[in-house]
């Protein structure tokens, strides 16, 4: 970093930049702040100068007239306004471009799920391990955090990364970063969340690649401090199994890897899912949640789009429990992640008219997934769809299944 940047950073008391995005953001920051502060100072000085230069030097009588004051020419006014407008729009354009960059995680980003609750952070890693209030990440590698909240809105804030994202109950938001400096950086909760808001802090621990793999290999270490979260997840798994049974999930999705109407839950979590439109998606929390709420959006290749939406039928705790249950089956043997989901030739094939079940007539179309904004739009969908909408009742599906001869 250039010395002037470093000098400005210290002058403004900004913490050292520790992520790949922090430096370009800081550079924009410095240019905006220096120009605006300079302009503001000039303007105030100009006003002060006029007050001295044009002060009244002798009293005036009640019948005294004075010549009308000059009016600045129109071109000067318009020119000034045009200049300001151009300047502001230029800053906006650079800022917006960076903001878009903040919203788009690289495809190879390491996913970490963040669950906020009053007043702690839980970080869940792809291998199933969890930490509380401490986020361990490797240096130099993009990490995507997928956030939600169990109770009220929180906001994950890492000042030295110049990053912040609200964790909203009932929906998923995300942010990503590439840490550039080893060490420990503070995490704060930035959205007011009640009595201990100011104590809801944590830290990002940035490890070298070797230290990170060593850390991954030490389950004892990383589960330290997990406290009752483990117990809570075990309860959630049990609850998830009950939810799956109660809502009829298991009529179509097996838990032992055997093929059926829908992809088996076994080995599903974390698997690479081929979609009907030839794209691929990772079966993460976001995808699983989205598929419960809007199953027709990203249909697993090789399966018919027969699943109805469960928006309005599953409440958020049930959804979390189900996801936890599916997660617990990720290592169930009997089927590799690649094979699962391709139904056997003998599997029952339903010939439903397109849209008759998966998307009943009259139902409003779900939000189209915007390319490039999937991390926001896609994850936001469950939350948005939580308002009960008129849907095809579940019985319709069951009747259909009955007609189709399913067990």
């Amino acid at each position: 970093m250039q010395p002037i940047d470093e000098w400005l950073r210290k002058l403004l008391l900004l913490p050292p930049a520790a992520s790949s995005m922090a430096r370009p953001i800081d550079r924009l920051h410095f240019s905006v702040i220096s120009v605006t502060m300079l302009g503001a100072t000039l303007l105030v000085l100009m006003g002060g100068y006029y007050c001295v230069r044009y002060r009244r030097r002798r009293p005036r009588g009640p019948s005294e007239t004075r010549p009308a004051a000059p009016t600045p020419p129109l071109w000067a006014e318009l020119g000034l306004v045009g200049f300001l407008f151009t300047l502001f729009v230029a800053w906006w354009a650079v800022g917006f471009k960076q903001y878009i960059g903040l919203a788009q995680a690289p495809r190879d980003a390491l996913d970490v799920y963040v669950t906020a609750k009053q007043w702690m952070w839980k970080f869940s890693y792809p291998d199933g391990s969890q930490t509380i209030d401490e986020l361990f990440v490797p240096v130099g590698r993009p990490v995507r955090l997928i956030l939600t909240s169990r109770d009220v809105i929180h906001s994950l804030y890492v000042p030295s990364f110049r990053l912040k994202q609200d964790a909203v109950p009932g929906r998923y938001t995300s942010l990503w970063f590439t840490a550039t400096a080893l060490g420990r950086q503070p995490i704060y909760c930035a959205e007011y969340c009640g009595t201990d808001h100011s104590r809801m802090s944590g830290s990002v621990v940035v490890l070298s690649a070797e230290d990170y793999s060593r850390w991954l290999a030490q389950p004892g270490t990383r589960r330290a401090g997990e406290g009752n979260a483990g117990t809570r997840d075990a309860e959630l798994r049990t609850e998830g199994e009950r939810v799956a049974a109660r809502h009829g999930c298991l009529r179509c999705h097996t838990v032992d890897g055997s093929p059926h109407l829908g992809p088996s839950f076994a080995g599903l979590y974390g698997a690479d899912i081929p979609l009907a439109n030839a794209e691929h998606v990772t079966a993460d929390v976001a995808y699983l949640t989205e598929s419960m709420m809007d199953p027709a959006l990203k249909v697993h290749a090789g399966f018919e789009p027969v699943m109805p939406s469960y928006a309005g039928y599953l409440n958020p705790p049930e959804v979390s429990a189900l996801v936890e249950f599916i997660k617990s089956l990720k290592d169930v043997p009997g089927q590799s992640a690649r094979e699962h989901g391709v139904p056997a030739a003998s599997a029952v094939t339903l010939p439903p008219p397109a849209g008759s079940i998966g998307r009943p007539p009259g139902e409003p179309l779900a939000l189209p997934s915007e390319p490039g904004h999937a991390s926001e739009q896609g994850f936001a969908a469950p939350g948005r769809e939580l308002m009960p909408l008129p849907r095809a009742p579940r019985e319709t599906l069951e009747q259909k299944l009955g007609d189709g001869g399913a067990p």
Partner: protein
Amino acid sequence: MIAVKLEPEPMALPPDYLHAKQGPMSWLTTTDHKRIALMFYGAVLVMFLLGGVFALLFRTELLSPRRDIMDATTYNKLFTWHGIVMVWLFLIPSIPNIFGNFILPLQLGARDLAFPRLNLASFYVYLVGATIVLSGLFAGGTDTGWTFYMPYSENTPVTLFPVVFGIFVVGISSIFTGLNFIATVHMLRAEGMTWRRLPLFTWSIYATSIILVLATPVLGLSLILVGLDHVFHLGVFDPATGGDPVLFQHLFWFYSHPAVYIMILPAMGVISEVVPTFAHRRPSSYAAIALSSLGIAFGGFLAWGHHMFVAGISTLDAGVFGIFSMFVAVFSAIKVFTWVATLYRGDIVFSTPLLYFFGFLFLFVFGGMTGVAVATQSLDVHWHDTYFIVAHFHFIMVGGSLTSFLAAAHYWFPKMFGRLYSERVGLLAASLVFMGFVLTFLPQFLLGNAGMPRRYYSYPAEYQWLHVLSTGGSYLLGSAVLLALGNLALALAYGARSEQNPWEARTFEWLSPSPPPEHNFESPPVIDREPYAFDLSEEQIRARAFPG
């Protein structure tokens, strides 16, 4: 009718509005816009002092990261109370309901507002609403922050409904006042008062009234839904019962962002009077100031999403909200340039209201420039919900409103009470208010840069020196405000008698005696000139306004 004269008058005039009728009932049942303005003055000042005391209490707690004088829950309640009282019970009603009420009919050459009884109702509705809010705060102790974000507001164990209901009631008072002002500007302009001859303060109050009428219902209804969610778990905003918390943020800021302009547009109106009057020249561009008021009023409705850049809204939405925020910044900059250009080649008399204008200029320009910075999305990600934002909106919105509120209190003091305050004390208080303000909030910009989130009861020790500076500044600010108000209070009783037009102003409110008689003008004035005709002499403007 033989009026009993209590005060010696230089000429045979009807008694002024303060003495036209006697007894408490003549005040409580008055429909005179000037008396209602004074009653608002008293009520709003009580709220202002109350909100200030809350702020000083929690600033004291923040002197150290540890517990000093209160626990975390009390701290959370106090910043909530400070926000609610200052925003809804002080800033929003302050300039429109006091000075707008008093001055607007006079500037139009009207006898009163269009609906005098509605005006009185507005005062009582405000009083009832404020009482409900305050009793709700003291009885239940709301700790949600003034923004009532869901679902925290649904789950908080404290009582919430009276507070949000009280704010709803206060909102009705705002709507009454807004309607009244709009109708008055349209219907009760004096003969010859065309739209291009409206004084700029009236223009800004008119623009404010449009926002009041359009935005307040959304706030009122949203807050009622929050209250119902809290009591009955309706499930409008809480995801646990199927609602959407981000929807609440949209509805809340759809009002509360324009509400920023409800506070700052009247302030700009005051400044637009003070600068030409003390520079003794016409504004360098009347049209720029008047039209930019309307531009801010409408543009301000399209910028609310910049409060939500990290709330999980779509990237495209954020971009659109960002650029509309820049539009508003351009309109505000036009005003600032016009004020400064008005000083150019003026005949400037330096006095207390003009010193407040300099405080305003500094706070508004620096606050506004940081506003451009936070409207730049990628920068806002770092600053959002930190002390930088707190400092930004206190500079631009509170600093702007407070300095111009005090400017108006001094500028129109002779008009309202017929007396002069001590100029030396006034200048001293204005300087101290400015220094206190900067000392309170400049450290907060740096705190925000350093990464200190707002609404924190305790904080990392390295932030302490900045908090100590800020708290020191807040004590200075509090004392300076008391000094300014005390100076005015003393002048009520001991101030020298003022002439009718002590500042040699040219706007039309100074055509009536100071203080004005009950019906404002002895005979209706005729307006045949622009409002800032400083090329005419004092005698000429009187002769032309009252021919014959």
